[in-house]
């Protein structure tokens, strides 16, 4: 069945077959295979279709840089992911895979008609058309364009897996466990440094895994790798496979994505699918090697055409021959070794075609020994074959002149255009690159972080050089930590050094205008597209990239950036560095959203704060609403009640007798010290000096810009001690603001701030019977001297308490604060004691209604950050005599004192219908749009007085008392009368009971 598998060869387990499906057909692979290697072992090269032209495609690579072989992978319900690289996904039992971007089938795809009309779909074609007739854009063109877009299908079900994250602090982080990385790790692991070595592949060793014939220190490559990894393990080095360094952030923070279960047949219960590591490293060594460059020539995208290095990897790691009769096209020595290894393993190499006239003698000998035909100074001008390459046309080439060619039959073509250092992470750091004219490549230049680059990443080639460089880099990293160590030495036999030349697109002997030489395989960008972009005035590589989409496919330019740049530079007649290199952006390879989420999903997405009384509310059927970080009881519906009915009942019960409310979320700040009163005078608009201990006052806090920031009732418990309350959402903001002034502006003051929001559970009692009900439970309060706006430390129901007599409802009211652990006990005690008074628990909605009936504002609802105390009718709360307080100066700015500011007033509709919160107000409902709006409704409720009430901000509202304004709504214009904001008990008689 898998006749391209060489028995016993490779690092796969020949005794462990694994079956999987691709487009519904079942295939057999081996433990250790990737989907790509297993399909190739079965003679399958056709694995996908390209983005724009739907051209048939096979794998070009054997790694994470793969642009073509993208598949859908799934593991049962909710576990489907598109665009998975077949070259990376390891086989697991029962793996289900499918090809993408084709219909009806991979081998016969209707979408391929685009390929016939390819001349129309040139770079940027869509900017030039689809504009007439205008209406067609929305209705016809765009839907068609969008319909054709995308590769795989999105998941459509909720993902049952979970994801993890972890912080890691390490002395040295080494990215890439090839020869350079391993050598660096050996050097860095001296003198007890904490070292972490990571590699994106399933096993460590990098290119050595594809070069088993190489000998290091007398050992065959694979034995040497095993031995060194053993040494590193013994030295306590952290070795992490299947772990991709996705991004390099400030101050040596590197993000790693570790894939934990996608390769497992049956993941253990509770195991996360992936884990994001946020690594902070003292030193970083980047040993990511180099990526092989495709050659750019007509038909270079045909299935069966792949990189020579990939073929070598499939052969040695997976024991797979990618073909029986490969041809080789190269401009670099490395591909010769691939040809030799395939020949030595039973393949009949059709020819080695090298664009260079002169090739190293030992390579020519190697070819002669194996009876391989060599065509030096030749190129491939085109390839043939429908779904798989059948022959290539080889022709002698001198510069751009092509001689007479001949067809060479083959079943695959191995190409190599040389190697590009993998510097993605380095470029995340904004480190600069320098152009190396000899190597025709960019090399690392100026560093911005504490990092070293080692091996092929610095343009080095050959194991001897790479190992030495890795060791040196590891040692430099160690020394960077201020530690000492000695430099490792390695002796290499059967080394495979190499050099090469680099090209723009290769010449063709066919019609140049018809040549299809691909640069970005996935996005179908050809050399002609690049030259067209330049012709149209795109002079920077950024423009060329964006205009042609070259390098914007899911390989993010790993295959295409350098070839694109070389051709653009050639077209512009400039040196590549003058055209620039597009910046690489994180992540290094596409990374699942889940890995970024980590624990930030479900109930731990964002924290939800709960009060000590929350459990009672939940048990008693409360409906909750989120307020800032808290969840608060919104209302307590009885069976059959909707919100409206429940709220009205709660309101009436409170007005009639007694209501109880969990106010624990209110912010509380202890302001203590000899200068407490001075501090309060400077922070709040109100005067505090005359407030006697045992009394409370409504406090108003402004920003320095003069607009209302927060408010709350503040009690003076002793001359040096204030108990400040803030809004629920404002608690943290207010404390930070106070600390800022205290530390930065007034460090001389002897006053200190302590948050006691969670020290106290707060229960509010309101209603005509509040006093009667509470009295018997309280000890330590002199009721003859405890009027409205008083406070005291005492006991309530036997619990230590801070008792406030205040009202946010207009009824007699108290707020009982007890240590949080007793919060629930207090609540249940009060509920018990309240029974004779039909005590009624109420939620935030009823609180809102009752306060609105009294015209008490809610900061953030009746004010919006552009409202001054005067605008809100709170001038009485501003200490005119005070020389200064936060925000005072802003209140005298011209537009703050100007006429016509929006002022807070009450509204009563003439027809008694409710107004919508947020409804806009006009003076002339018959004016055309855009209308002149004079304000809007900030609060609106069904009241206990049988008619709805509303509050609104209206330009010059205070001068409009009794006037009629209009509220145009979709279903007609409402008329409303401007009133005071106090709708209920204006004389506060009920408070004085």
């Amino acid at each position, binding site marked *: 069945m898998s006749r391209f598998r060489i028995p016993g060869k490779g690092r796969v387990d020949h005794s462990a077959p694994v079956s999987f499906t691709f487009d519904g057909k079942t295939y057999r692979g081996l433990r250790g295979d990737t989907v790509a290697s297993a399909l190739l072992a079965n003679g399958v090269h056709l694995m996908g279709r390209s983005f724009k032209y739907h051209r048939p495609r096979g794998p070009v690579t054997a790694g994470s840089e793969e642009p073509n072989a993208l598949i859908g992978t799934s593991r049962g319900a909710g576990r489907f992911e598109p665009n998975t690289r077949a070259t990376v996904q390891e086989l697991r039992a029962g793996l289900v895979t499918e090809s993408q971007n084709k219909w009806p089938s991979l081998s016969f795809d209707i979408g391929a008609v685009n390929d016939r009309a390819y001349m129309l779909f040139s770079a940027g074609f869509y900017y030039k058309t689809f504009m007439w007739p205008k209406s067609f854009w929305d209705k016809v063109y765009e839907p068609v364009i969008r319909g054709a877009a995308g590769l795989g299908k999105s998941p459509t079900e909720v993902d049952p897996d979970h994801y993890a994250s972890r912080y890691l602090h390490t002395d040295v982080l080494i990215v890439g466990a090839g020869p350079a990385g391993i050598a660096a790790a050996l050097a860095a692991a001296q003198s007890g440094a904490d070292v972490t070595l990571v590699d994106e592949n399933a096993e460590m060793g990098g290119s050595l895994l594809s070069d088993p014939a190489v000998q290091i220190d007398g050992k065959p490559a694979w034995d040497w790798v095993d031995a060194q990894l053993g040494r590193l393990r013994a030295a306590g080095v952290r070795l992490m496979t299947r772990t991709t360094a996705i991004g390099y*952030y*400030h101050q040596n923070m590197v993000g790693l994505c570790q894939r934990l279960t996608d390769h497992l047949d049956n993941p253990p219960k509770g195991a996360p699918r992936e884990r994001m590591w946020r690594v*902070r490293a003292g030193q970083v060594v980047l040993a990511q090697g180099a990526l092989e460059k495709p050659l750019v020539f007509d038909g270079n995208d045909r299935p069966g055409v792949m990189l020579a290095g990939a073929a070598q990897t499939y052969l040695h790691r997976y024991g797979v021959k990618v073909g029986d009769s490969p041809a080789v096209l190269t401009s670099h020595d490395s591909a010769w070794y691939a040809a030799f290894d395939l020949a030595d393993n039973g393949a009949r190499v059709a020819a080695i075609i090298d664009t260079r006239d002169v090739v190293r003698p030992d390579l020519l000998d190697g070819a002669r020994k194996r009876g391989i035909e060599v065509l030096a100074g030749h190129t491939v001008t085109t390839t043939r074959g429908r779904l798989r390459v059948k022959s290539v046309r080889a022709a002698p080439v001198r510069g751009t002149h092509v001689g007479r060619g001949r067809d060479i039959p083959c079943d695959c073509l191995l190409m190599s255009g040389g190697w590009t250092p993998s510097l993605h992470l380095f470029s995340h750091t904004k480190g600069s690159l320098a152009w190396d004219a000899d190597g025709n490549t960019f090399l690392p230049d100026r560093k*911005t972080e504490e990092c070293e680059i080692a091996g092929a990443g610095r343009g080095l080639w050959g194991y001897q050089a790479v190992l030495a460089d890795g060791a040196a880099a590891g040692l430099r990293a160690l020394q960077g930590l201020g530690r000492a160590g000695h430099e490792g030495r390695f002796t290499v036999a059967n080394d495979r050094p190499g050099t090469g030349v680099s090209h723009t697109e290769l010449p063709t002997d066919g019609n140049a205008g018809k040549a299809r030489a691909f640069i970005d395989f996935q996005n179908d960008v050809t050399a002609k597209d690049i030259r067209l972009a330049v012709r149209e005035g795109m002079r920077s590589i950024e423009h060329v990239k964006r205009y042609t989409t070259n390098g914007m496919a899911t390989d993010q330019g790993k295959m295409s950036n350098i070839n694109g740049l070389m051709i653009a530079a050639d077209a512009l007649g400039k040196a590549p560095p003058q055209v620039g290199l597009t910046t690489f952006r994180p992540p290094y390879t596409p990374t699942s959203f889940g890995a970024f989420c980590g624990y930030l999903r479900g109930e731990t997405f964002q924290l939800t704060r709960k009060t000590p009384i929350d459990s009672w509310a939940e048990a008693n059927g409360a409906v909750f609403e989120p307020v800032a970080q808290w969840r608060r009881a919104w209302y307590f519906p009885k069976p059959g009640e909707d919100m409206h009915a429940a709220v009205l009942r709660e309101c009436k019960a409170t007005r009639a007798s007694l209501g109880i409310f969990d106010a624990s979320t209110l912010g509380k700040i202890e302001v203590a010290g000899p200068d407490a009163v001075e501090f309060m005078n400077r922070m709040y608009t109100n005067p505090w000096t005359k407030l006697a201990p045992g009394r409370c006052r409504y406090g108003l806090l402004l920003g320095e*810009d003069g607009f209302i920031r927060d408010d709350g009732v503040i009690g003076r418990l002793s001359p040096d001690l204030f108990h400040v309350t803030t809004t629920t959402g404002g608690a943290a903001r207010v404390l930070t603001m106070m600390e*800022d002034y205290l530390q930065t*502006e007034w*460090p001389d003051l002897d006053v200190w701030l302590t948050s006691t929001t969670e020290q106290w559970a707060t229960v509010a009692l309101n209603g005509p019977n509040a006093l009667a009900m509470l009295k018997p439970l309280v000890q330590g309060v002199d009721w003859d001297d405890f009027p409205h706006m008083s406070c005291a430390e005492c006991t309530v129901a036997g619990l230590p308490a801070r008792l406030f007599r205040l009202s946010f409802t207009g009824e007699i009211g108290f707020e009982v604060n007890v240590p949080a652990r007793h919060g629930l006990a207090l609540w249940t005690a009060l509920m018990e004691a309240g029974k004779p008074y039909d005590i009624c628990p109420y939620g935030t909605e009823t609180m809102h209604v009752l306060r609105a009936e009294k015209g008490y504002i809610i900061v953030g609802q009746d004010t919006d950050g552009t409202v001054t105390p005067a605008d809100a009718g709170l001038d009485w709360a501003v200490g005119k005599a005070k*020389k200064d307080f936060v925000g005072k100066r802003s209140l005298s700015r011209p537009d703050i004192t100007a006429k016509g500011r929006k002022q807070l007033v009450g509204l009563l509709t003439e027809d008694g219908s409710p107004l919508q919160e947020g409804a806009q107000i006009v003076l002339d409902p018959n004016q055309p749009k855009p209308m002149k709006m004079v304000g809007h409704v900030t609060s609106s409720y069904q009241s206990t007085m049988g008619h709805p009430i509303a509050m609104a901000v209206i330009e010059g509202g205070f001068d409009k008392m009794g006037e009629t304004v209009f509220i145009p709504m979709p279903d007609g214009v409402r008329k409303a009368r401007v009133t005071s904001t106090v709708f209920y008990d204006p004389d506060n008689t009920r408070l004085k009971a």
Partner: protein
Amino acid sequence: MLLIHCPYCEDTLPELEFTYAGEAHIARPADPSALSDEEWRDFLFIRTNARGPHYERWRHIGCGRFFNALRDTVSDRFLMTYKAGEARPTLTNEAAE
């Protein structure tokens, strides 16, 4: 994520333990009422927004203190941090390097 040295804890810690608090050395005027509207605007809203070394304030959750820092806004590298109330240090060469 930045690494920040807290001058009070004398420890270099991850950004997540800190909150940014805007430009440094903008002292609240002793007598705001004496200021013209323009002077008051400058205090309230005008910021250097330096491209390069920038004097700014941070607060450390650990010790709760506001402190000052000199950070290069092009590289995001901290050149130095110092306690609140200390005079604005002049940018030395080795710091600027």
